């Protein structure tokens, strides 16, 4: 049982790390602000989400698991709001590359 949980953790955390790699490459290589924003939101949603889900089998107490999930939800909400605001600011300031 322990081994199964560890394997789940390794797979999910590795997948999350892969999305951080993809997001960083996207942030550096994509041509304009909106496509970079697209890369960043993938990191916010999938990268952090997969890492949090991968950590859940490893925490001992339920309170800590609840706290992990709550932190993830907070970052998720703030990421959604901030990405909308950034897109709005980009459109308002004209087509910047």
């Amino acid at each position: 049982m322990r081994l199964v949980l560890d394997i789940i953790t390794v797979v999910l955390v590795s997948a999350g790390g892969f999305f951080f790699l993809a997001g960083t490459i996207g942030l550096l290589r994509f041509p304009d602000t909106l496509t970079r924003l697209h890369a960043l939101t993938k990191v916010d949603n999938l990268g952090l989400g997969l890492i949090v889900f991968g950590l859940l089998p490893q925490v001992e107490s339920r309170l800590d698991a609840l706290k992990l999930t709550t932190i993830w939800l907070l970052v998720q909400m703030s990421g959604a709001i901030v990405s909308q605001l950034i897109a709005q600011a980009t459109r308002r300031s004209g087509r910047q590359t």
Partner: protein
Amino acid sequence: MTIANFLLAAAAFVLLMVAIGLARILYGPADVDRILSVQLLGSGGVAVLLLLSVAVKLPPIMDVALMLGLLATFVSVAFLRDTASSTSESATEDR
């Protein structure tokens, strides 16, 4: 390799990725692009702190991650509020 070592390695990897992503602050070109990089630092920092917290079995580090997530939001909102008000002074668009 124990699971704690794996989590520490994952934390180091994510930190490296965030550090490389910070190069966007240098290249710009617009200030909005720089704030994107700071946003990556925010969510990447939360991920690193959560990984560390579980790896070294020190649950209070989760509170640090919570604060970092909160402050990263405020940084972006404060910055964007500033740019929005400065650009809409000339525009006639109402908000």
